[in-house]
């Protein structure tokens, strides 16, 4: 199932290497998909309260949650990528349809990072 273009997605960040606090930018690497399955894990957060948005990811990973990058679904579609909802856990989705070439993946990740908004924990 696809996501609506007006939705907002959150990419949770657990590595300080994936954002720059001084100029509040998200690094492209935060949007590079996993090599083994070519998927990028995100959560659909439209309509959720701020504290609930942080709550979702608090205990998902072993690493402490540091920040998140919010991005509109429309930016994903403009990059010729797709969003696949799986709701496991609830609200979870993957950004899919990444190209095969590594450099092309990097370019799309850069395009997403440029459109994302950084929010610090």
């Amino acid at each position, binding site marked *: 199932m696809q996501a609506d273009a007006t939705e907002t997605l959150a990419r949770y960040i*657990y*590595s300080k*290497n994936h954002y720059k606090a001084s100029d509040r930018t998200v690094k*492209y690497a935060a949007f590079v998909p996993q*090599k083994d399955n070519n998927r990028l*894990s995100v959560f659909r957060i439209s309509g959720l309260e701020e504290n609930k948005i942080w709550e979702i990811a608090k205990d998902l990973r072993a*690493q402490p949650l540091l920040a998140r990058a919010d991005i509109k679904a429309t930016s994903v579609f403009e990059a010729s990528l797709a969003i696949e909802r799986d709701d496991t856990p609830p609200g979870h989705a993957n950004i899919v349809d990444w190209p095969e070439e590594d*450099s092309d993946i990097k*370019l799309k990740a850069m*395009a997403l990072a440029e459109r994302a908004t950084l929010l610090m924990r």
Partner: protein
Amino acid sequence: MNMAVASSSSNWSSFSTRPSGERTDHYSSWKISESITNVISQMRQSETFRRLPNSLSEVYRECSRADWDGYGALAITSNTYQEARSVINALPLSMPLPDIVAEPTGEIGFEWRKGKGYIFVVSVGGKYQMTYAGLFGGNSVHGSEYFDRTLPQTVIQHIRRLYS
């Protein structure tokens, strides 16, 4: 004697000596070359330029184990770290310094950012290959090049384009 000083160790081919009346033997050429090497070496030891190796070491320390990003990232290997060091040594001194970024694929990226929508990234993964991508306002590029201690001209041109 006129000299054209290369801005980088990767650009030694553009270094030239031109005798003007006086005789230049191998020894004096070697002395000049050594002097310039020393100057470049001193410049690379400067506070600003030392930031890069320090930053690289920090990234390597933090990301040399698997799953460092919480999403199953591949560990950065010592081969990749060494190749990234070669990139730093090959960077022209005249260029702005990049940020160093760990990628979930186990690669190390160098990111030059001029402003929103103007960004160029080149990365290495210990396989003698550079992958690059750039956004230049409405235009974009991406590709890959062979890398063995010398920065490919294509990459240099793209970085120059970013700041032109």
